[in-house]
């Protein structure tokens, strides 16, 4: 697998505030890499440094194994924070201008406009667009030069549920075409649905990095209910039980390692109890994220 991005010791100070501290990170080809972190954790600052608009205080990074130059940036499609275009130009003209800056053929414009479903409004001025349309135009612009790497910073910020779903579908479609995507977001649900890998930043420090698939591993929690009076005691007797909680009218049983929901089900059945409700709950990224944050 080829390394697309390699970051070593990247640091940014704003006066006395350290926005990004000694960041080390690697992104491989084909990954959909989620960058998580609360507001102000240094996500956008990091992306700004990677895209040449923020000068790093210390550290270095390479794109495709090469030191960063502005020519290299032409191969990357990036939308940082919010969409930025000339408000008095039409969508079409904005994209033509982008094509000139990126030195790529303008032939791609109809294609990307179709992809983000903006062809019908391409001759209207950018300032007349709704927020969702602006976001979509930004994605169109990022895709203009057929980049191998796409950077999206909070692409669904401020969108309505339909807009969020549209952008998510679009991201999945792009990821399926084999592009490497770096996605900064504080919407954990979104990252879990779209990303293959993720990193967590807090106050400029990298506090976790790993595959999204790992999130579901570890202790299982099973939600149980049955019409028997002594269910609580029965559950305590089960050898796989680590702890029991009562929540929303259900028992939340956290299992020891090596034990699974079906073991508990069999145990109850053997005891002559039939559960009216039994759900194995995988740990969500949100839960894990909060755990990681509280540990640091």
């Amino acid at each position, binding site marked *: 697998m080829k390394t697309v991005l390699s970051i070593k010791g990247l640091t940014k100070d704003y006066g006395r505030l350290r926005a990004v501290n000694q960041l080390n990170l690697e992104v491989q080809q084909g990954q959909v890499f989620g960058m998580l972190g609360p507001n102000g954790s240094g996500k956008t600052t990091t992306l700004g440094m990677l895209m040449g608009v923020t*000068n790093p205080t210390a550290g270095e990074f390479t794109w495709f194994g090469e030191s960063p130059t*502005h020519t290299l*940036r*032409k191969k990357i499609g*990036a939308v*940082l924070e919010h969409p*930025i275009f000339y408000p008095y130009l039409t969508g079409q003209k904005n994209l033509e201008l982008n094509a*000139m800056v990126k030195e790529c053929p303008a032939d791609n414009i109809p294609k990307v406009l179709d992809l983000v479903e903006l062809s019908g409004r391409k001759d209207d001025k950018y300032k007349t667009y709704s927020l969702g349309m602006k976001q979509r135009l930004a994605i169109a612009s990022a895709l203009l030069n057929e980049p191998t790497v796409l950077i999206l910073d909070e692409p669904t910020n401020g969108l309505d549920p339909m807009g969020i779903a549209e952008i998510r579908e679009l991201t999945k479609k792009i990821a399926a075409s084999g592009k490497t995507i770096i996605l900064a977001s504080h919407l954990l649900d979104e990252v879990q649905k779209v990303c293959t890998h993720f990193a967590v930043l807090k106050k400029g420090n990298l506090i976790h990095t790993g595959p999204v698939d790992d999130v579901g591993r570890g202790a299982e929690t099973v939600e149980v209910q049955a019409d028997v009076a002594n269910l609580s005691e029965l559950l305590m007797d089960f050898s796989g039980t680590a702890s029991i909680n009562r929540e929303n009218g259900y028992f939340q049983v956290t299992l020891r390692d090596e034990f699974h929901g079906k073991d508990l089900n069999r145990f109850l059945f053997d005891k002559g109890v039939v559960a009216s409700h039994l759900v194995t709950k995988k740990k969500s990224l949100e839960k894990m994220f909060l755990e990681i944050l509280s540990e640091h």
Partner: protein
Amino acid sequence: MLLHLLKIDLKKLTSYRTFWVVCGLYFITIGFSTASGMEFLKWLASLIEGFGQKINIDRIPLYHFPDVWLNLVWWSGFFKMLLGIMTVISITNEYTYRTLRQNVIDGLSRWEFLLSKILTNFLLSLLSVVLIFLIALITGFIYTPEINWSYVFTDLEFYPAYLLEVFSFLSYALMLGILIQRSGLTIILLLLSYLLEFIIKTNIDDYIPWILPFFPMESISALIKMPLYRYAFQEIQDYVDPLSVAVAFAWMIAFNYLSYLKLKRSDL
């Protein structure tokens, strides 16, 4: 490469209505005001006649070769402020819309971005020179009673000097825009530049008078001195002072270099 950068900046400007309005105003005011000098003289004559004096306006060779060259470039020099304001709007827009940031993200280097603005400045200066040259040529042929070809080609060195004057001033406007980043404040400072420099000069001219020609606005306006005295005292500076050229040129380089330094060091 240079042409490519110029095209990028022109693409931004040519769909921008303010650009056409300001440039239109500039070229129309310059065109009309330089072409209507005779009307002005007639008005002046009638005014003086009211006081019981008489002047023969045909004796004032405002549009005669070679006077016309210097007269028109000197007069047009006043209007460079309009182009300066256009330059300020063009650069501060990039900050307000944050498009400078996006341009760099999309793969323009900071130097290339600046160069695209400098090239537009140069193009505007050049257009201004060409326009005034044409007006001077036409009015010269209309009003000069006897065409003497050696006079027609005298004093043409004022045109390169005028190009330097406008381009230096636009470089200054660009630098102010990059340093201040807000259009309103930048335009006010630009308008006040001559006045502020004048205040400083009058406060120090008793102590270090030799420094006066080295002030930026002073050196830019010293390129082309007011020629109208020649009709009263017969004596004017009818050549381009090499010192003014050197100083104005140095300032032009300094303005653009400072713009580059500021742009390179700042987080966009």
